[in-house]
């Protein structure tokens, strides 16, 4: 069947609800279609690649098909007969000191996003950055990254980046711009800059900050405005209301026993999210001393006889065996764990309107409409006795939550979401103060921004002045305000009234089009700068490569304004710190900070702020349907729109790719007769947009959620004309949410490419969970069900094999994984994984080697959410290997299921026989072999695959081999933790552990001996090397959900 001509059967939601309530459907389900067993879902279940429409019937693909056919004919005939082409070697003229050709170097730098910097280590191969890793020394990273940081290296090489300075659309030059700017400055000087305005994104860079301040002293009448579309406007106003001053709020989750998230979403986005996720998960890595008998030498069938002489298998390294420690020591390791009776873990309550990773990790997730979240906060504050707060309504769970919080005074925290109204932020501050959290689980510091301000007020003031004709010169430094400013402010017509407008940006975008001058900006990997982490720690941003297109920075524009036109970004930053550091030995200070990636002792000192009871007013009662606006989970505010990796990364909540949608709950959809894919017109405050609906279980009723970042018109080839532009509905009075929405079906339908149906393992309980109570009663719950019992190991036809040397294995702790999908993009960056596009994803042909499955459990109105990353299981008895007719997938002596691209002839039998559905096939030439700017991006240690071959997770074999070679050169065994696969390295929660199972002291062997450890589809006796640790939940017994 063709997925595109969706002859979708309308879902009968009543029937579904009944099925779920009677427990007839699968216990863990991925989508409503799965529960309903629609033909669409069944097709994907029966056939991994259900859509067998030949590609040449697809009109859009005809050209590329011909291209591919032409190439295949040419290659099929000639590949065997051509000689290797001539290759040249181009050595250096003067080889730089530290450079050893063939070995990567890592440089510390930092990326600023939404006004917060995160320290990074970037891998460079002979001067070209290829991969971003977190800086373990940086407080905001601790070695982890999120997918925005991972994909930033793709942005560097994006061929759609702006490459020249433009004046009125014609190619100009930086020097011409500088002289134009000098003329403007000379004119502005006459009236002290009364008509001179600068608009930036949130500025945290101390250097840029001081440059701006210097400039404002030069022209005292000039003004500086900031606008960050997904900025923390509410956090600022909330702090003003609670403390009378702006503060920076830092949560110390490692000390929190009870967490209440008011639409917090802190695990996946926001300032310091990586650190928060790390601290949140730190106490969920539960080790117990109830061990599964661990027999490293005996986990093979009884009466083991070594298999037939296998000359092509690895001969184990003898020293590896010698290093193996006797099993006695194992028990000592287990003694470190605690008895299951004593297991505790923090409890989290989450209140939210739309599902999020944070809600998924919560022990209690309350689905409330956006307007009810504020009421919930009021009621909670009132229940906790915060003075001057009255509740209008009271959620039934509030007394129990309040009691729980009170019982954990000083060890609990309330976290408001960045997009909640200021009142919720103020209430959270008051509640935290009342609970004694301040100074313990919550620390306040001065703001990290150079100038904390209400950016909504700032942009409103600017637009007001622009409309009044008071602005003569406007420099827009970064950002894309024409696209991102709320619709009611009408930035575009205001911009028309400014005589001189210049825009510094990475892309020639919507705003650039309306400015006379466009200056191409340098990417952060190309230039010098500095930034601050969530706690104020300063990091220098150092370039990994010279600007590819001679891009410029805001710093350089300010030096131009200051009359120092030729100063390099390096000198600007260095000179600032030479003064600011007050260091006697500046050279050492500078070099040390550059090397370490952090400037020591720059985190901001905690301050004590007194919460003052203020008259917080309740928002007026909502009218009709409600709406909430959020940045897109993977595209954010639109800044990452043109990155194929992020477009194709399934959004954690919906598993949707290449699109945004109008999220709506099944019940509300039913009321309005809406099905997934129906085009809706949303009318809100006199403006309307049309987009397609997506039914999302666990979404609040009578509410729609829309996301920013889509509906671009000048974003680049990748992102233009897809999705809907939610900024066109947003208003400046309530940027996060509103009510009075009207929705109407327009009659059209839209096709979404989601990955929620593809690669399913059917309803075989892939996720295993228990509450703490259940776990204490039955610690072995994860493996004790009858169905989960593996077949006796002798019931196999495979000859047994003794893994003598290394025996690689992996565990994934579902109790820690928050489903953020950072691993997916880290893997894509490390392993040169191709992007396939929306149509191909719809056919189940996306190429990610690790996917994050999302499961619902329970009713469709209020389900629990679970996330499960699934890479190749590296089965010992791998079903894929037996069916390959050309031995393209075979087992290594260390237990890795190897995929040999050159042998693969593309029968796809292996993927057909894989019960986990982790193999990916290059149906077409997905890797971009023709765009030159992508060449330097690729990891030189991994083959770029061509069409017609199968591929899959290799456990990052390039990293294993590199570590093996280094250890062999030193004649030693690989140390535990020396090999970190890309997914594990990016993971903020340390959910993924990799290592040698033959070493009983290794972390992975210890985790595999944990009672929570289980294998997926263990009953098939595939003996997966990748196993999971079951999830534990800690619900409040006082709260009966219902």
């Amino acid at each position, binding site marked *: 069947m063709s997925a595109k001509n969706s002859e979708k059967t309308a879902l009968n939601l009543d029937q579904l609800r009944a099925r779920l309530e009677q427990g007839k459907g699968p216990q863990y389900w991925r989508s409503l279609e799965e529960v309903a067993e629609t033909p669409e879902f069944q097709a994907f279940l029966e056939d991994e690649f259900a859509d067998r429409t030949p590609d040449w019937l697809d009109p859009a693909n005809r050209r590329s098909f011909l291209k591919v056919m032409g190439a295949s004919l040419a290659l099929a005939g000639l590949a065997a007969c051509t*000689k*290797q082409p*001539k*290759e*040249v*070697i*181009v*050595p*250096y*003229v*003067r*080889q730089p000191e530290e450079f*050893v*050709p*063939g*070995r990567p170097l890592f440089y510390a730098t930092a990326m600023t996003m939404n006004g917060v910097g995160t320290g990074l280590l970037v891998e460079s191969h002979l001067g070209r950055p290829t991969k971003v890793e977190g800086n373990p020394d940086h407080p905001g990273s601790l070695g982890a990254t999120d997918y925005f940081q991972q994909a930033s290296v793709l942005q560097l090489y994006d061929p759609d980046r702006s490459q020249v300075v433009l004046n009125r659309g014609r190619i100009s030059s930086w020097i011409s711009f500088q002289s134009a700017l000098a003329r403007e400055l000379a004119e502005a000087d006459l009236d002290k800059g009364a008509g001179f305005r600068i608009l930036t994104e949130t500025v945290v860079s101390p250097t840029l900050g001081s440059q701006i301040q210097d400039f404002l002293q030069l022209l005292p009448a000039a003004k500086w405005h900031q606008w960050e579309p997904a900025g923390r406007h509410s956090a600022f106003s909330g702090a003003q209301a609670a403390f009378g001053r702006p503060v920076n709020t830092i949560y110390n989750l490692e000390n929190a026993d009870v967490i209440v998230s008011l639409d917090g979403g802190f695990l996946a986005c926001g300032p310091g999210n990586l650190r928060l996720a790390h601290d949140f998960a730190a106490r969920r890595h539960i080790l117990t001393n109830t061990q599964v008998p661990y027999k490293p030498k005996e986990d093979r069938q009884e009466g083991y006889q070594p298999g037939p002489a296998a*000359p*092509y*298998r*690895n*001969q*184990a*390294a*003898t*020293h590896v065996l010698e290093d193996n420690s006797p099993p006695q020591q194992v028990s000592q390791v287990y003694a470190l764990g605690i008895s299951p009776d004593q297991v505790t873990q923090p409890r989290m309550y989450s209140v939210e309107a739309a599902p999020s990773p944070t809600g998924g990790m919560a022990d209690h997730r309350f689905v409330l409409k956006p307007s009810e979240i504020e009421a919930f906060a009021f009621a909670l504050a009132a229940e906790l006795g915060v003075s001057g707060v009255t509740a209008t309504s009271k959620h039934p769970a509030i007394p129990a939550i309040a009691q729980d919080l009170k019982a954990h005074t000083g060890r609990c925290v309330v976290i408001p979401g960045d997009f909640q109204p200021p009142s919720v932020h103020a209430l959270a501050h008051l509640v935290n103060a009342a609970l004694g959290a301040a100074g313990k689980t919550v620390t306040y510091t001065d703001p990290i921004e150079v100038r904390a301000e209400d950016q909504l007020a700032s942009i409103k003031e600017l637009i007001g002045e622009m409309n009044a004709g008071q602005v003569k010169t406007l420099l827009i430094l970064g950002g894309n305000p024409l696209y991102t400013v709320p619709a009611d402010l009408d930035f575009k017509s205001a911009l028309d009234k400014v005589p001189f407008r210049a825009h510094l940006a990475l892309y020639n975008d919507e705003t650039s089009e309306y400015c006379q001058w466009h200056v191409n900006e340098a990417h952060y990997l190309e230039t010098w700068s500095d930034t601050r982490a969530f706690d104020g720690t300063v990091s220098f941003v150092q370039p990994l490569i010279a600007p590819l297109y001679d891009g410029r920075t805001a710093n350089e524009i300010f030096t131009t304004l200051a009359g120092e036109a030729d100063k390099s970004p390096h000198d600007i930053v260095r000179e600032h710190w030479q003064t600011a550091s007050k260091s006697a030995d500046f050279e050492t200070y500078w070099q040390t900070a550059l090397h370490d990636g952090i400037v020591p002792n720059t985190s901001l000192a905690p301050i004590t702020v007194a919460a003052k009871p203020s008259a917080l007013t309740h928002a007026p009662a909502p009218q009709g349907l409600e709406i909430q606006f959020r940045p897109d989970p993977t595209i954010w505010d639109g800044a990452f729109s043109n990155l194929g990796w992020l477009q194709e990364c399934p959004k954690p909540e919906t598993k949707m790719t290449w699109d945004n949608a109008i999220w709506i709950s099944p019940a509300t959809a039913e009321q309005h007769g809406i099905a997934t894919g129906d085009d809706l017109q949303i009318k809100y405050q006199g403006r309307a947009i049309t987009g397609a609906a997506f039914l999302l279980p666990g979404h609040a009723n009578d509410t729609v959620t829309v996301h920013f970042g889509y509906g671009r018109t000048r974003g680049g080839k990748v992102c233009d004309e897809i999705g809907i532009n939610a900024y066109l509905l947003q208003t400046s009075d309530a940027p996060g949410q509103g009510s009075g929405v009207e929705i109407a079906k327009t009659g059209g339908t839209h096709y979404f490419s989601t990955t929620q149906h593809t690669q399913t393992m059917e309803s075989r309980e892939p996720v295993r969970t228990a509450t703490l109570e259940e776990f204490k009663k039955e610690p072995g719950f994860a493996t004790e069900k009858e169905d989960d019992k593996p077949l006796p190991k002798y019931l196999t036809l495979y000859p047994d094999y003794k893994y003598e*040397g290394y025996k690689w294995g992996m565990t994934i702790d579902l109790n820690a994984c928050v489903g953020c999908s950072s691993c997916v993009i880290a893997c894509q960056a490390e392993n040169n994984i191709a992007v396939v596009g929306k149509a191909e994803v719809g056919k189940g042909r996306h190429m990610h080697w690790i996917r994050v499955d999302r499961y619902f459990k329970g009713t469709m109105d209020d389900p629990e959410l679970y996330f499960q990353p699934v890479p190749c299981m590296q089965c010992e008895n791998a079903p894929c290997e037996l069916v390959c007719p050309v031995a393209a997938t*075979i087992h*290594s*002596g*260390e237990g*890795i299921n*190897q995929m*040999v*691209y*050159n042998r693969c002839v593309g029968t796809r039998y292996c993927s057909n026989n894989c019960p986990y559905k982790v193999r990916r096939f290059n149906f077409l030439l997905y890797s971009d072999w023709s765009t030159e700017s992508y060449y330097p991006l690729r990891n030189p*240690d*991994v*083959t770029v695959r061509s069409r017609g071959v199968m591929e899959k997770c*290799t456990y990052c*074999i*390039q990293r*294993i*081999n590199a570590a093996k*070679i280094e250890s*062999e*050169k030193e*004649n030693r065994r690989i140390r535990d933790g020396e090999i970190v696969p890309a997914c594990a390295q990016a993971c903020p929660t340390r959910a993924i552990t990799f290592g040698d199972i033959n070493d009983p002291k290794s972390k992975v062997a210890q985790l595999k001996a944990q009672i929570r450890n289980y294998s997926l589809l263990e009953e098939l006796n595939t003996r997966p090397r990748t196993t999971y640790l079951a999830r534990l939940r800690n619900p409040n017994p006082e709260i009966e959900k219902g």
Partner: protein
Amino acid sequence: MSQIFYRGTNTIAKVSIVTIVFLVGALITAAYTLDRGSYNSDVAVVKEQPVPFSHKHHVTDDGIDCRYCHTSVETSHYAGLPATEICMSCHSQIWSNANILEPVRASWRSGESIAWTRVHDLPEFVYFNHSIHVNKGIGCASCHGRVDQMPLMFKVNTLYMNWCLDCHREPEKYVRPREQVFNMAYVPPANQIEFGRKLVAEYHIQKLTDCYTCHR
């Protein structure tokens, strides 16, 4: 009913059978010869270089160690080709006016690299590592031949996979003491197999025949 085949057909049939057998044999021989021969493998083929660099002169006559120019052979997968600077460390003093060295001086003046033609060219899907081989007692000459006797560089081995596997399956046949790795004139002892086994044990050499050892 008349006969379908006339008498002479037998001869034609016999000749055809012999011819077909011969042709098939000839085709196989031709293909094999073509594959193994220099035409395809480039063995013993001298490639044109910007400078006719003589390893024989530099190694044998001047006694320069391999590592003077191939600096990263012990630390990296890539042995490294000398930067122009390394050439100029001698040739700014000696043969500083020689015509054949003009490309080197031009590179030094202009800052543009010399583009050498690769002689030992492994396919892109092979991830060979020099450093581990050198560290485990595989001599330069084992793969590259007597470079010290080559006025112009050429390949002596096919670098085909079965050639690699000869050693990966039986390293004891080829391994030598670590201190002899860079000795071009090293002659293996008469009891190489026995001696090799000893070294294999001493150096912890593994018979790495997993695909992922070289292909990823």
